[in-house]
């Protein structure tokens, strides 16, 4: 069997097993990723949802929601938190403890906002999916996060 044939065989089997496994697994993912819905209207944020959702907000919406007193969760790694946080935001590297904190503060139904360092960090989205698995219904990912908040000159809180 030539190297070319081996490569073809390994790739073909991997493609088939990968696709078939997704058809039979209970937590199957869609074949093509769909972008996260963007929320433009503050009233949409306050609705009680029947299905769990993760949605995206921009800086303007984040400002409005912060004024309304929504909980903010900082998804950045601990070493970045000494730079400061959005006022009243909470953070915990242990997602189990973080979930307990959120449950204690607002319960599972009420919406809250997760942010990380910038547009491209990805950890806010990752944390959103982890917290959704804990049963949280209404999660908002603040696109732009800490960078856009501080670039806009908005208030920050520095902890010792």
């Amino acid at each position: 069997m030539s190297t070319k044939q081996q490569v073809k065989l390994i790739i073909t089997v991997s493609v088939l097993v990968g696709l078939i496994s997704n058809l039979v697994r209970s937590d199957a993912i869609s074949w093509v990723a769909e972008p996260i819905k963007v929320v433009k209207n503050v009233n949409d944020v306050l609705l009680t949802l029947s299905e769990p959702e993760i949605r995206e907000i921009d800086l303007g919406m984040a400002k409005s929601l912060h004024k309304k007193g929504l909980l903010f969760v900082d998804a950045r790694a601990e070493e970045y938190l000494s730079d400061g946080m959005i006022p009243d935001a909470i953070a915990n590297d242990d997602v189990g403890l973080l979930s307990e904190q959120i449950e204690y503060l607002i319960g599972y139904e009420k919406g809250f906002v997760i942010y990380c360092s910038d547009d491209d960090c990805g950890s806010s989205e990752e944390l959103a999916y982890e917290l959704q698995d804990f049963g949280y219904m209404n999660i908002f990912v603040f696109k732009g996060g800490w960078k856009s908040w501080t670039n806009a000159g908005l208030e920050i809180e520095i902890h010792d």
Partner: protein
Amino acid sequence: MIKLHPWLIVLIRILLGIIFIYASYDKILDPGKFARDIANYHIIPMGFENLIALIIPWLELFIGIGLVAGLMVDGASMISGGLMALFILFIFQATLRGFNIECGCGLKEGEMVGWNKILENLVFLGASYLVWHRQQKLFELFPKTPLSD
């Protein structure tokens, strides 16, 4: 060209295989997370990260098994090298663009992209080359005959 003892190449081959099997495990269990890790690189168009996240972990598992068990070692080491070159490109562009993202490499939870990950993958790329370029086929189950091409 450095000449390594054939049994050292076998050891490298088996270690590389174990690394691939280990790296595939979490990705197979949670392709959704792996798809999000791929998406964070901002390089895959049209939502194809999900399809990639479904296929790559199985590819890693099969080449890992091939390298450990000595099955289709030429094909497995060639794909291994190709994957490593691809991963290096992904991590390199993310590092240059200043992305502060998880690698999604599957070896350690929470590892971020950066020069150390590039170096690590270069070592694996070198190991793939050594296995592919081996002179003696020791401890290989299939194919047993010399390559026809």
